[in-house]
Protein backbone atom coordinates (compact mmCIF):
# COMPACT_ATOMS: atom_id res chain seq x y z
CA UNK A 1 0.00 0.00 0.00
CA UNK A 2 1.47 3.39 -0.96
CA UNK A 3 1.91 5.95 1.80
CA UNK A 4 0.29 8.64 -0.31
CA UNK A 5 -2.20 8.11 -3.08
CA UNK A 6 -3.54 11.14 -4.88
CA UNK A 7 -6.31 10.69 -7.40
CA UNK A 8 -7.97 13.27 -9.62
CA UNK A 9 -6.96 16.05 -7.21
CA UNK A 10 -8.29 19.49 -8.06
CA UNK A 11 -7.45 22.79 -6.40
CA UNK A 12 -6.96 26.45 -7.24
CA UNK A 13 -7.04 30.00 -5.99
CA UNK A 14 -10.47 31.54 -5.60
CA UNK A 15 -12.38 30.64 -8.73
CA UNK A 16 -9.22 30.01 -10.78
CA UNK A 17 -8.54 26.29 -11.06
CA UNK A 18 -4.85 25.30 -11.15
CA UNK A 19 -4.82 21.55 -10.56
CA UNK A 20 -7.01 19.74 -13.09
CA UNK A 21 -6.94 16.22 -11.71
CA UNK A 22 -3.56 15.19 -10.33
CA UNK A 23 -2.79 11.48 -9.95
CA UNK A 24 0.29 10.28 -8.16
CA UNK A 25 1.27 7.55 -5.78
CA UNK A 26 4.22 7.65 -3.38
CA UNK A 27 5.54 4.48 -1.74
CA UNK A 28 6.47 4.47 1.93
CA UNK A 29 10.18 5.08 2.37
CA UNK A 30 10.71 6.25 -1.19
CA UNK A 31 12.27 9.44 -2.49
CA UNK A 32 9.99 10.97 -5.10
CA UNK A 33 10.52 14.06 -7.23
CA UNK A 34 7.91 16.28 -8.81
CA UNK A 35 9.21 18.12 -11.88
CA UNK A 36 7.68 20.76 -14.04
CA UNK A 37 8.05 24.23 -15.49
CA UNK A 38 7.30 27.38 -13.55
CA UNK A 39 3.57 27.73 -13.04
CA UNK A 40 2.79 24.05 -13.69
CA UNK A 41 1.14 23.73 -10.26
CA UNK A 42 3.87 21.97 -8.24
CA UNK A 43 3.70 24.30 -5.24
CA UNK A 44 -0.08 24.27 -5.42
CA UNK A 45 0.04 20.46 -5.20
CA UNK A 46 2.25 20.49 -2.10
CA UNK A 47 0.19 23.20 -0.42
CA UNK A 48 -2.99 21.25 -1.03
CA UNK A 49 -1.38 18.13 0.45
CA UNK A 50 -0.30 20.16 3.50
CA UNK A 51 -3.81 21.54 3.94
CA UNK A 52 -2.90 25.16 3.25
CA UNK A 53 -5.21 25.19 0.23
CA UNK A 54 -8.57 23.43 0.09
CA UNK A 55 -8.98 20.65 -2.46
CA UNK A 56 -11.95 21.31 -4.70
CA UNK A 57 -12.18 17.75 -5.96
CA UNK A 58 -10.58 14.35 -6.04
CA UNK A 59 -9.10 12.40 -3.17
CA UNK A 60 -5.93 12.17 -1.13
CA UNK A 61 -5.35 8.86 0.62
CA UNK A 62 -2.68 8.88 3.32
CA UNK A 63 -1.84 5.55 4.94
CA UNK A 64 -4.95 4.25 3.25
CA UNK A 65 -7.32 6.78 4.75
CA UNK A 66 -8.80 9.99 3.27
CA UNK A 67 -6.73 13.00 4.29
CA UNK A 68 -8.70 16.00 5.51
CA UNK A 69 -8.41 18.58 8.26
CA UNK A 70 -6.40 21.74 8.89
CA UNK A 71 -2.60 21.98 8.46
CA UNK A 72 -2.03 21.36 12.18
CA UNK A 73 -3.82 18.00 11.99
CA UNK A 74 -1.73 16.99 8.98
CA UNK A 75 1.50 17.90 10.73
CA UNK A 76 0.38 15.76 13.63
CA UNK A 77 -0.34 12.94 11.16
CA UNK A 78 3.24 13.25 9.90
CA UNK A 79 2.87 15.32 6.72
CA UNK A 80 5.24 18.28 6.89
CA UNK A 81 5.87 20.93 4.24
CA UNK A 82 9.18 22.72 3.76
CA UNK A 83 7.75 25.63 1.80
CA UNK A 84 9.13 27.35 -1.26
CA UNK A 85 11.17 30.37 -0.21
CA UNK A 86 12.22 28.81 3.13
CA UNK A 87 9.84 30.81 5.34
CA UNK A 88 11.97 30.67 8.46
CA UNK A 89 10.93 32.92 11.37
CA UNK A 90 13.37 35.75 10.64
CA UNK A 91 13.49 37.50 14.02
CA UNK A 92 13.72 34.29 16.06
CA UNK A 93 16.97 32.45 16.66
CA UNK A 94 17.88 29.19 14.95
CA UNK A 95 17.24 27.41 18.26
CA UNK A 96 13.77 28.98 18.58
CA UNK A 97 12.93 28.13 14.96
CA UNK A 98 13.78 24.49 15.60
CA UNK A 99 11.87 24.51 18.87
CA UNK A 100 8.76 25.73 17.06
CA UNK A 101 9.28 23.01 14.45
CA UNK A 102 8.51 20.61 17.29
CA UNK A 103 5.25 22.45 18.08
CA UNK A 104 3.02 19.40 17.63
CA UNK A 105 5.26 17.16 19.76
CA UNK A 106 6.32 19.85 22.27
CA UNK A 107 4.94 17.99 25.29
CA UNK A 108 7.26 15.05 24.59
CA UNK A 109 10.55 16.50 25.83
CA UNK A 110 12.54 13.37 25.04
CA UNK A 111 11.34 13.28 21.47
CA UNK A 112 12.12 16.98 21.04
CA UNK A 113 15.67 16.44 22.29
CA UNK A 114 16.12 13.36 20.12
CA UNK A 115 14.88 15.19 17.03
CA UNK A 116 17.14 18.15 17.77
CA UNK A 117 20.12 15.80 18.00
CA UNK A 118 19.15 14.24 14.68
CA UNK A 119 18.82 17.64 13.03
CA UNK A 120 22.20 18.71 14.39
CA UNK A 121 23.81 15.52 13.13
CA UNK A 122 22.43 16.15 9.63
CA UNK A 123 23.11 19.91 9.66
CA UNK A 124 26.01 20.58 12.10
CA UNK A 125 25.92 24.17 10.87
CA UNK A 126 22.63 24.72 12.70
CA UNK A 127 24.23 23.76 16.01
CA UNK A 128 26.99 26.31 15.44
CA UNK A 129 24.47 29.00 14.61
CA UNK A 130 21.99 28.17 17.38
CA UNK A 131 21.77 31.68 18.80
CA UNK A 132 21.86 33.58 15.53
CA UNK A 133 18.71 35.26 14.22
CA UNK A 134 17.37 33.18 11.35
CA UNK A 135 16.89 36.23 9.15
CA UNK A 136 20.65 36.88 9.18
CA UNK A 137 21.60 33.38 7.94
CA UNK A 138 22.80 32.83 4.38
CA UNK A 139 20.37 31.38 1.85
CA UNK A 140 21.87 27.91 2.16
CA UNK A 141 21.75 27.99 5.95
CA UNK A 142 18.13 29.18 5.86
CA UNK A 143 17.27 26.24 3.62
CA UNK A 144 18.96 23.86 6.06
CA UNK A 145 17.02 25.48 8.88
CA UNK A 146 13.74 25.15 6.99
CA UNK A 147 14.37 21.44 6.40
CA UNK A 148 15.66 20.96 9.96
CA UNK A 149 12.59 22.67 11.35
CA UNK A 150 10.46 20.32 9.28
CA UNK A 151 12.23 17.33 10.83
CA UNK A 152 11.55 18.47 14.39
CA UNK A 153 7.99 17.11 14.41
CA UNK A 154 9.06 13.56 13.42
CA UNK A 155 7.53 13.61 9.92
CA UNK A 156 6.64 10.49 8.03
CA UNK A 157 6.22 12.33 4.73
CA UNK A 158 8.39 15.38 4.05
CA UNK A 159 7.25 17.68 1.24
CA UNK A 160 10.15 19.89 0.09
CA UNK A 161 9.43 22.73 -2.33
CA UNK A 162 12.40 23.86 -4.47
CA UNK A 163 15.11 23.50 -1.87
CA UNK A 164 17.81 24.32 -4.44
CA UNK A 165 16.28 27.64 -5.53
CA UNK A 166 18.95 30.34 -5.45
CA UNK A 167 21.67 28.07 -4.06
CA UNK A 168 25.13 27.58 -5.55
CA UNK A 169 25.79 24.18 -7.19
CA UNK A 170 27.93 23.18 -4.22
CA UNK A 171 25.28 24.08 -1.64
CA UNK A 172 22.62 22.42 -3.76
CA UNK A 173 24.66 19.23 -3.70
CA UNK A 174 24.96 19.47 0.09
CA UNK A 175 21.24 19.99 0.54
CA UNK A 176 20.43 17.07 -1.78
CA UNK A 177 22.85 14.86 0.13
CA UNK A 178 21.15 15.82 3.39
CA UNK A 179 17.74 14.99 1.94
CA UNK A 180 19.05 11.64 0.80
CA UNK A 181 20.32 10.97 4.31
CA UNK A 182 16.93 11.94 5.75
CA UNK A 183 15.27 9.57 3.32
CA UNK A 184 17.68 6.76 4.26
CA UNK A 185 16.72 7.28 7.89
CA UNK A 186 13.18 6.29 6.96
CA UNK A 187 11.37 9.51 6.06
CA UNK A 188 9.41 9.40 2.82
CA UNK A 189 10.30 12.42 0.69
CA UNK A 190 8.42 14.20 -2.05
CA UNK A 191 10.58 16.96 -3.53
CA UNK A 192 9.60 19.62 -6.02
CA UNK A 193 12.66 20.47 -8.08
CA UNK A 194 13.85 22.17 -11.23
CA UNK A 195 17.40 20.95 -10.74
CA UNK A 196 18.23 17.80 -12.76
CA UNK A 197 20.83 16.70 -10.23
CA UNK A 198 18.14 15.45 -7.91
CA UNK A 199 16.95 12.75 -10.31
CA UNK A 200 20.04 10.62 -9.65
CA UNK A 201 18.84 9.95 -6.11
CA UNK A 202 15.10 9.73 -6.85
CA UNK A 203 13.18 6.47 -6.84
CA UNK A 204 10.27 7.99 -8.69
CA UNK A 205 9.82 11.07 -10.81
CA UNK A 206 6.55 12.74 -11.72
CA UNK A 207 6.38 15.29 -14.49
CA UNK A 208 3.72 17.94 -14.14
CA UNK A 209 2.34 20.07 -16.95
CA UNK A 210 -0.46 22.60 -16.57
CA UNK A 211 -1.97 21.05 -13.49
CA UNK A 212 -1.70 17.38 -14.50
CA UNK A 213 0.86 14.62 -14.13
CA UNK A 214 1.91 13.83 -17.69
CA UNK A 215 4.69 11.32 -17.05
CA UNK A 216 5.75 9.00 -14.24
CA UNK A 217 8.88 6.91 -14.12
CA UNK A 218 11.92 5.92 -12.15
CA UNK A 219 14.33 8.73 -11.36
CA UNK A 220 17.27 7.45 -13.36
CA UNK A 221 15.18 6.66 -16.44
CA UNK A 222 13.66 10.14 -16.37
CA UNK A 223 17.15 11.59 -16.10
CA UNK A 224 18.16 9.73 -19.25
CA UNK A 225 15.05 10.75 -21.10
CA UNK A 226 16.35 13.40 -23.49
CA UNK A 227 12.91 14.87 -24.11
CA UNK A 228 12.23 15.36 -20.42
CA UNK A 229 15.66 16.82 -19.87
CA UNK A 230 15.31 19.24 -22.71
CA UNK A 231 11.82 20.28 -21.68
CA UNK A 232 12.35 20.68 -17.96
CA UNK A 233 15.95 21.43 -17.37
CA UNK A 234 17.06 23.05 -20.60
CA UNK A 235 20.07 20.74 -20.75
Amino acid at each position, binding site marked *: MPLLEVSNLRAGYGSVPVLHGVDMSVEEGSNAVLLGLNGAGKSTTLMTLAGLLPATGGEILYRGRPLTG*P*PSARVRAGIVLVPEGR*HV*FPALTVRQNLR*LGAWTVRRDARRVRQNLNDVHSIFPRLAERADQQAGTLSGGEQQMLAIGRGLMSSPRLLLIDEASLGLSPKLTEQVFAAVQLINQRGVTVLMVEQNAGVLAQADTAFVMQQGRITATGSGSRTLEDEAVRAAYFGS
Partner: protein
Amino acid sequence: MGAFFALGLFQGAVYGLLAVGIVLVYKAKRVFNFAQGEFGGVAAFCAFGLTVALGLPYWVGVVGGLAAAVAMGLVVERVVVRPLESSSRTIMLVALVGVALFAVAVTVLAAEPVPRVMPPIVEGGTVDILGAGILPQQLILLAVLAVLAAAMAWFFKTDLGLAVLASSQDLRAAQVVGISPTAVSRLVWGLAALLGGIAGLLYAPVGIFTPGFMTFTMLVPAFAAAVLGGMTSLPGAFIGGLAIGVVQNLGIYLLGQQLAVPGAAELGVFALLMLVLLIRPQGLFGKAV
Protein backbone atom coordinates in the same frame (compact mmCIF):
# COMPACT_ATOMS: atom_id res chain seq x y z
CA MET B 1 7.89 70.09 39.38
CA GLY B 2 8.91 66.78 40.96
CA ALA B 3 5.26 66.16 41.69
CA PHE B 4 4.30 66.72 38.06
CA PHE B 5 7.08 64.40 36.97
CA ALA B 6 5.93 61.65 39.32
CA LEU B 7 2.31 62.13 38.32
CA GLY B 8 3.40 61.92 34.70
CA LEU B 9 5.19 58.63 35.29
CA PHE B 10 2.14 57.06 36.89
CA GLN B 11 -0.26 58.29 34.26
CA GLY B 12 2.28 57.28 31.62
CA ALA B 13 2.46 53.78 33.05
CA VAL B 14 -1.25 53.36 32.39
CA TYR B 15 -0.84 54.73 28.84
CA GLY B 16 2.04 52.34 28.43
CA LEU B 17 -0.01 49.37 29.58
CA LEU B 18 -2.73 50.22 27.07
CA ALA B 19 -0.09 50.79 24.41
CA VAL B 20 1.42 47.35 25.03
CA GLY B 21 -2.00 45.81 24.35
CA ILE B 22 -2.35 47.88 21.18
CA VAL B 23 1.10 46.80 19.97
CA LEU B 24 0.45 43.14 20.79
CA VAL B 25 -2.62 43.12 18.54
CA TYR B 26 -0.86 45.19 15.88
CA LYS B 27 2.16 42.88 15.78
CA ALA B 28 0.07 39.76 15.56
CA LYS B 29 -2.74 40.96 13.30
CA ARG B 30 -1.70 44.30 11.73
CA VAL B 31 -4.90 45.75 13.17
CA PHE B 32 -5.26 49.08 14.99
CA ASN B 33 -7.35 48.15 17.97
CA PHE B 34 -9.51 51.13 18.84
CA ALA B 35 -11.42 48.99 21.33
CA GLN B 36 -8.35 48.59 23.56
CA GLY B 37 -9.43 51.36 25.95
CA GLU B 38 -12.87 49.88 26.50
CA PHE B 39 -11.40 46.61 27.81
CA GLY B 40 -10.30 48.81 30.69
CA GLY B 41 -13.60 50.67 30.83
CA VAL B 42 -15.62 47.47 31.02
CA ALA B 43 -13.27 46.03 33.65
CA ALA B 44 -13.57 49.18 35.77
CA PHE B 45 -17.38 49.27 35.60
CA CYS B 46 -17.71 45.58 36.41
CA ALA B 47 -15.33 45.93 39.34
CA PHE B 48 -17.23 48.99 40.54
CA GLY B 49 -20.55 47.17 40.28
CA LEU B 50 -19.29 44.14 42.17
CA THR B 51 -17.54 46.00 44.96
CA VAL B 52 -19.34 49.31 45.50
CA ALA B 53 -22.84 48.46 44.26
CA LEU B 54 -23.03 44.86 45.47
CA GLY B 55 -20.66 45.23 48.39
CA LEU B 56 -18.54 42.18 47.49
CA PRO B 57 -14.87 41.98 48.52
CA TYR B 58 -12.37 43.95 46.47
CA TRP B 59 -10.62 40.91 45.04
CA VAL B 60 -13.94 39.67 43.64
CA GLY B 61 -14.25 42.99 41.86
CA VAL B 62 -10.74 42.70 40.44
CA VAL B 63 -11.20 39.12 39.24
CA GLY B 64 -14.70 39.84 37.93
CA GLY B 65 -13.54 42.97 36.13
CA LEU B 66 -10.61 41.20 34.47
CA ALA B 67 -12.79 38.23 33.55
CA ALA B 68 -15.29 40.59 31.92
CA ALA B 69 -12.50 42.26 29.94
CA VAL B 70 -11.09 38.93 28.72
CA ALA B 71 -14.58 37.70 27.83
CA MET B 72 -15.12 40.89 25.84
CA GLY B 73 -11.79 40.38 24.07
CA LEU B 74 -12.70 36.82 23.07
CA VAL B 75 -16.16 37.84 21.89
CA VAL B 76 -14.74 40.71 19.83
CA GLU B 77 -12.21 38.30 18.29
CA ARG B 78 -14.89 35.77 17.37
CA VAL B 79 -17.73 38.07 16.34
CA VAL B 80 -15.95 41.06 14.79
CA VAL B 81 -12.30 40.38 14.01
CA ARG B 82 -12.39 36.87 12.58
CA PRO B 83 -15.32 37.42 10.20
CA LEU B 84 -13.57 40.57 8.91
CA GLU B 85 -10.15 38.90 8.62
CA SER B 86 -10.04 39.15 4.85
CA SER B 87 -11.71 42.54 4.49
CA SER B 88 -9.81 45.81 4.21
CA ARG B 89 -7.99 47.34 7.14
CA THR B 90 -10.27 50.37 7.01
CA ILE B 91 -13.34 48.22 7.52
CA MET B 92 -11.67 46.45 10.44
CA LEU B 93 -10.68 49.77 11.98
CA VAL B 94 -14.19 51.22 11.68
CA ALA B 95 -15.63 48.03 13.14
CA LEU B 96 -13.33 48.29 16.16
CA VAL B 97 -14.27 51.95 16.69
CA GLY B 98 -17.84 50.63 16.58
CA VAL B 99 -17.01 48.08 19.26
CA ALA B 100 -15.60 50.83 21.51
CA LEU B 101 -18.65 53.06 21.06
CA PHE B 102 -20.94 50.08 21.60
CA ALA B 103 -19.18 49.22 24.85
CA VAL B 104 -19.48 52.84 25.99
CA ALA B 105 -23.18 52.82 25.15
CA VAL B 106 -23.69 49.60 27.10
CA THR B 107 -21.95 51.03 30.17
CA VAL B 108 -24.08 54.18 29.90
CA LEU B 109 -27.23 52.04 29.81
CA ALA B 110 -26.13 49.64 32.53
CA ALA B 111 -24.78 52.35 34.82
CA GLU B 112 -25.98 55.91 34.65
CA PRO B 113 -23.51 58.33 33.09
CA VAL B 114 -22.58 59.98 36.35
CA PRO B 115 -19.00 60.32 37.56
CA ARG B 116 -17.98 57.57 39.94
CA VAL B 117 -15.27 57.09 42.45
CA MET B 118 -13.65 53.71 42.67
CA PRO B 119 -12.13 53.15 46.08
CA PRO B 120 -8.39 52.47 45.94
CA ILE B 121 -7.11 48.98 46.64
CA VAL B 122 -5.56 50.18 49.88
CA GLU B 123 -6.67 53.31 51.70
CA GLY B 124 -4.23 55.63 53.33
CA GLY B 125 -2.49 58.94 52.99
CA THR B 126 0.32 59.89 50.68
CA VAL B 127 3.94 58.94 51.14
CA ASP B 128 6.54 61.55 50.32
CA ILE B 129 8.88 60.49 47.50
CA LEU B 130 10.95 63.03 45.49
CA GLY B 131 8.88 65.79 46.98
CA ALA B 132 5.79 64.24 45.47
CA GLY B 133 2.93 62.83 47.47
CA ILE B 134 2.59 59.24 46.27
CA LEU B 135 -0.61 57.33 46.98
CA PRO B 136 -0.49 53.69 48.05
CA GLN B 137 -2.55 53.00 44.91
CA GLN B 138 0.36 54.27 42.87
CA LEU B 139 2.79 52.03 44.67
CA ILE B 140 0.52 49.10 43.88
CA LEU B 141 0.60 50.20 40.26
CA LEU B 142 4.38 49.97 40.36
CA ALA B 143 4.26 46.49 41.88
CA VAL B 144 1.72 45.30 39.31
CA LEU B 145 3.85 46.68 36.50
CA ALA B 146 6.93 44.92 37.77
CA VAL B 147 5.06 41.63 37.99
CA LEU B 148 3.55 42.16 34.54
CA ALA B 149 6.90 42.97 32.96
CA ALA B 150 8.41 39.80 34.41
CA ALA B 151 5.39 37.74 33.34
CA MET B 152 5.53 39.08 29.78
CA ALA B 153 9.27 38.51 29.52
CA TRP B 154 8.72 34.94 30.71
CA PHE B 155 5.70 34.37 28.45
CA PHE B 156 7.56 35.27 25.26
CA LYS B 157 10.17 32.65 26.10
CA THR B 158 7.59 29.86 26.39
CA ASP B 159 6.40 27.76 23.44
CA LEU B 160 3.09 29.61 23.45
CA GLY B 161 4.75 33.02 23.49
CA LEU B 162 7.15 32.00 20.73
CA ALA B 163 4.16 30.81 18.70
CA VAL B 164 2.63 34.28 18.99
CA LEU B 165 5.88 35.92 17.88
CA ALA B 166 6.34 33.39 15.09
CA SER B 167 2.81 33.94 13.79
CA SER B 168 3.41 37.68 13.70
CA GLN B 169 6.61 37.16 11.69
CA ASP B 170 5.35 34.64 9.15
CA LEU B 171 1.83 33.32 9.39
CA ARG B 172 2.36 30.78 6.59
CA ALA B 173 5.42 29.35 8.34
CA ALA B 174 3.50 29.17 11.62
CA GLN B 175 0.82 27.12 9.90
CA VAL B 176 3.47 24.90 8.35
CA VAL B 177 4.77 23.86 11.78
CA GLY B 178 1.23 23.17 12.95
CA ILE B 179 0.38 26.32 14.91
CA SER B 180 -3.32 27.13 14.58
CA PRO B 181 -3.83 30.77 13.52
CA THR B 182 -7.24 30.76 15.22
CA ALA B 183 -5.78 29.71 18.55
CA VAL B 184 -3.10 32.39 18.31
CA SER B 185 -5.68 35.02 17.40
CA ARG B 186 -7.77 34.09 20.44
CA LEU B 187 -4.73 34.14 22.69
CA VAL B 188 -3.61 37.56 21.45
CA TRP B 189 -7.03 39.15 21.91
CA GLY B 190 -7.48 37.55 25.31
CA LEU B 191 -4.08 38.84 26.43
CA ALA B 192 -4.65 42.32 25.02
CA ALA B 193 -8.00 42.47 26.80
CA LEU B 194 -6.39 41.35 30.04
CA LEU B 195 -3.77 44.11 29.76
CA GLY B 196 -6.48 46.65 28.95
CA GLY B 197 -8.50 45.43 31.93
CA ILE B 198 -5.53 45.81 34.26
CA ALA B 199 -4.93 49.33 32.94
CA GLY B 200 -8.56 50.22 33.64
CA LEU B 201 -8.51 48.79 37.16
CA LEU B 202 -5.30 50.64 37.97
CA TYR B 203 -6.51 53.94 36.59
CA ALA B 204 -10.12 54.02 37.82
CA PRO B 205 -9.31 54.55 41.51
CA VAL B 206 -6.92 57.43 40.76
CA GLY B 207 -9.65 59.95 39.97
CA ILE B 208 -13.32 59.95 39.12
CA PHE B 209 -14.47 57.96 36.14
CA THR B 210 -17.41 58.07 33.75
CA PRO B 211 -18.51 55.76 30.93
CA GLY B 212 -16.00 55.93 28.10
CA PHE B 213 -13.26 57.42 30.29
CA MET B 214 -10.65 55.02 28.96
CA THR B 215 -11.52 55.58 25.31
CA PHE B 216 -11.93 59.34 25.47
CA THR B 217 -9.04 60.28 27.72
CA MET B 218 -6.55 57.39 27.54
CA LEU B 219 -6.74 55.89 24.07
CA VAL B 220 -5.20 58.70 22.04
CA PRO B 221 -2.15 59.10 24.31
CA ALA B 222 -1.83 55.29 24.31
CA PHE B 223 -1.78 55.21 20.52
CA ALA B 224 0.76 58.01 20.53
CA ALA B 225 2.83 55.90 22.94
CA ALA B 226 2.59 52.87 20.65
CA VAL B 227 3.70 54.94 17.64
CA LEU B 228 6.48 56.51 19.66
CA GLY B 229 7.75 53.06 20.60
CA GLY B 230 7.78 51.96 16.98
CA MET B 231 4.37 50.17 16.88
CA THR B 232 5.97 46.71 17.07
CA SER B 233 8.04 46.88 20.26
CA LEU B 234 6.30 45.91 23.49
CA PRO B 235 8.89 47.49 25.82
CA GLY B 236 9.03 50.43 23.39
CA ALA B 237 5.30 50.98 23.75
CA PHE B 238 5.59 51.01 27.50
CA ILE B 239 8.50 53.44 27.52
CA GLY B 240 6.59 55.54 24.97
CA GLY B 241 3.72 55.63 27.46
CA LEU B 242 5.99 56.83 30.26
CA ALA B 243 7.45 59.52 27.99
CA ILE B 244 4.00 60.75 27.00
CA GLY B 245 2.79 60.84 30.59
CA VAL B 246 5.80 62.82 31.72
CA VAL B 247 5.75 65.25 28.80
CA GLN B 248 2.04 65.78 29.26
CA ASN B 249 2.42 66.66 32.91
CA LEU B 250 5.57 68.73 32.47
CA GLY B 251 3.64 70.54 29.72
CA ILE B 252 0.91 71.28 32.21
CA TYR B 253 3.49 72.50 34.70
CA LEU B 254 5.68 74.60 32.41
CA LEU B 255 3.25 75.94 29.83
CA GLY B 256 -0.01 75.70 31.71
CA GLN B 257 0.91 76.78 35.20
CA GLN B 258 3.86 79.03 34.49
CA LEU B 259 2.82 80.58 31.17
CA ALA B 260 -0.92 79.93 31.30
CA VAL B 261 -1.09 78.33 27.85
CA PRO B 262 -4.36 76.42 27.41
CA GLY B 263 -4.13 72.82 26.14
CA ALA B 264 -0.56 72.59 27.39
CA ALA B 265 -0.67 68.82 27.96
CA GLU B 266 -1.86 68.09 24.43
CA LEU B 267 0.64 70.51 23.01
CA GLY B 268 3.50 68.80 24.82
CA VAL B 269 2.48 65.34 23.57
CA PHE B 270 2.01 66.61 20.04
CA ALA B 271 5.42 68.27 20.03
CA LEU B 272 7.08 65.10 21.36
CA LEU B 273 5.39 62.89 18.77
CA MET B 274 6.34 65.25 15.92
CA LEU B 275 9.90 65.48 17.15
CA VAL B 276 10.39 61.73 17.38
CA LEU B 277 8.72 61.06 14.04
CA LEU B 278 10.91 63.70 12.38
CA ILE B 279 14.14 62.33 13.80
CA ARG B 280 13.22 58.63 13.81
CA PRO B 281 10.21 57.97 11.56
CA GLN B 282 10.26 54.29 12.61
CA GLY B 283 9.70 55.28 16.25
CA LEU B 284 12.09 54.95 19.15
CA PHE B 285 12.34 51.16 19.05
CA GLY B 286 10.96 50.31 15.62
CA LYS B 287 13.13 48.83 12.91
CA ALA B 288 13.79 50.94 9.86
CA VAL B 289 12.07 49.47 6.83
